[in-house]
């Protein structure tokens, strides 16, 4: 076997291991309800797309193609966070750690889980989440920062983590609301929230798709045919722009179904 193939196999095993743990945890308290099945399916979707984004050939292609990089970003901004919010894997995974001493578990919860939950609630006001989501998207597409992330793996990881984090906060009011007064509990609020998100993302995509200027000079160091870099940038912009309606409309429809399923308890 060649080294890259070993890499992929090891990475894939790493990516799906949470799935195996989670599935095992759920099997122990097997709930046949639609809700449980939906959560399991969502977790599977999240893991597979995470593997696709980080460990598949898409990841290598994203280093040399802006368009491929945008496909990767779409996974971090839409598919993975929505799937994770529906799956809510933290509970079953933590339950699996019952074999650990109680004091350790309580300490870990105080250190990690509760602060994370409180921070999310604090930042989770829809308006704040939208602003953060927009800022993260636009800042990381600024040519200078984008170039830095392209050259430095650590910064690249921070970029993807921040995108995933801001996306989790953005989609949370729709898919994992806290039951508070800031919930998007009416069609009007959902519509405003989603059209705002779609518009800013589409606007960025449109700029990149319609521009005659090459914004990301990092790709110019790659061997390319004349005009290929600009064409690649335009394609990436078009991917962002044209996929926005699909994702936001699907989210609108899915969030209503998900809310109804949660309320009925499956």
């Amino acid at each position, binding site marked *: 076997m060649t080294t890259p193939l070993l890499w992929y196999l090891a990475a894939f095993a790493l990516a799906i291991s949470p799935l195996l743990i989670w599935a095992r945890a759920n099997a122990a308290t097997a709930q046949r309800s639609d809700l449980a099945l939906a959560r399991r399916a969502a977790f599977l979707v999240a893991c597979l797309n995470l593997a696709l984004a980080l460990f598949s050939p898409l990841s290598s292609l994203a280093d040399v193609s802006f368009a491929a990089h945008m496909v990767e970003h779409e996974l971090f901004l839409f598919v993975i966070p929505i799937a994770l919010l529906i799956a809510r894997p933290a509970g079953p995974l933590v339950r699996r750690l019952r074999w650990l001493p109680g004091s350790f578990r309580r300490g870990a919860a105080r250190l990690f889980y509760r602060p994370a939950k409180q921070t999310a609630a604090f930042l989770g006001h829809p308006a704040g989440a939208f602003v953060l989501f927009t800022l993260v998207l636009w800042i990381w597409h600024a040519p200078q920062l984008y170039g830095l992330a392209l050259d430095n793996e650590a910064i690249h990881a921070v970029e993807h983590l921040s995108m995933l984090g801001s996306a989790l906060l953005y989609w949370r009011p729709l898919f994992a609301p806290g039951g508070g007064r800031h919930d998007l509990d009416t069609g009007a609020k*959902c519509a405003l929230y989603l*059209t705002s998100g779609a518009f800013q993302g589409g606007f960025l995509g449109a700029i990149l798709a319609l521009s005659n200027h090459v914004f990301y000079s990092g790709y110019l160091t790659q061997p390319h045919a004349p005009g290929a870099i600009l064409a690649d940038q335009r394609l990436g*912009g078009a991917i962002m*722009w044209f996929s926005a309606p699909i994702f936001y409309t699907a989210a609108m429809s899915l969030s209503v179904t998900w809310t109804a399923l949660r309320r009925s308890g499956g």
Partner: protein
Amino acid sequence: MQKDPELTKAALAHIITGFVMFLGMGLLGLAMRLDQAGFWSIDPVAFYAIMTLHGIGMIAAALTAALGGLIEVLNGEAPLSERAIWTAYVINFISFGFLLFATVAGGVGAGWTLLYPLPFHPVGEWTLTAVLAIYFGSFLLAVAYLIYCISFLTGTVRAAGGIANALALRYLFSGGRRSAGNLPTPHQLAATVVSIDGILTVFIGLAWLASQFLQGAGVIKSMDALLVKNVIMLFGHMITNLSIYTALGVLLALLPMLTGREIRTSWPIVFAFDFVLIVLFIPFGHHLYQDFAEPKTLLVVGQFASLASTVPVLLVAILGGMAQFYRSGITWSVPAIFVALGLWGWTFGGIAGFMDAVIPINQVTHNTLWVPGHFHSYYLLGVLAFTWAFMYRLILDRSGGRETLVSKAAAWSYGVGAAGMVLMFLLSGALSVPRRFAKHLPEWQLPDRISVGFVILLAVALLWLTGEMMFWLGRAWRGQEKGKQA
């Protein structure tokens, strides 16, 4: 059934969105008039991008606003899906973003009745991405409209107990002697007809779009130009007429509110709408009178169908509307003024259209400014007048707001401004000034310059009314009528 307050908010959102789009597109219209009048110079390439956005945007604005009115009119009478309506709203809004960026940033200036080699061979004026964006935006608009139509149709059919009852077919074919259960109200009938025709129109549009996408992808090289032109004209004719009939549905619900007189479903009304259901597909040939290759039969059929299709409008909307007004003791509120202006504009624009639909007259007026004169009357003083009447009444009723003398003066000024503008178009058309010309010759510019004054009057009137409605909008949204929560 009780009115659902969330559906009322959905209706308000649609109407307000349509109104804001209308204002934006109106500014583009003013820019075009200023350019043609010689008061301002716009690059011709930019002019056509502005014209493309203005045309598509105005239809989208009128349709969105009229659909909002229909949502509120059907609210409490027919079961409507809030989820479907809000999903359609999101898609509709996003589609407008595509149209906006494709024209403003992408520079697509191909208009909307485009034929090969447009839009794919623009001689470097815009990119393929921009073209695909405008087509994708149109596709999304079609999907949104399909969702609206299915929602309305499902609602009216459920309320009536079947599609035959929703169209009052037994009542129609028995000459008004028999009916199955309660007859649908006129506005429910309008909603059913518009929905059925809307669904069919969307599929016509999607078929055309599919061919354009295939052409853009290089899968097909070209299509028969005459066939494509017929399909475009059929689709365009249908979508504009459907926006008109949607507004008619809103009008038929509004008139009883203003006059205190119920509009009972009668045999002429049922006949008119069921007739429109079929005949609306036939007159599109009047857009092709000057295409020598078009089969003469289609042109002649198109002419007579165009003339025949004015009969239902005349009976139901104009004569029926005027009968509602006559000796009703109606007070001249802003909505009443808009409705009166609308009935006048519809008559006037209809006569202009009637004339243009006659082949010998079309020889003179085809592709002149007579045509924009006709459809601007229909829209500004027709579809939009009825819709703004409904919007104004809805906002003030829900907020407990009051109109003032200045509001009424603004409403009349809207009428004068719009009338002056369309009269100048018609005058230019009578003088054979061509439409869709970015630059006008000096000898054409006098009516253009006069029309600028009227457009500015229209803009000032709209500014006042917009300010007034914005003042009351918060309370209208919350439904704080007379200090009570809705």
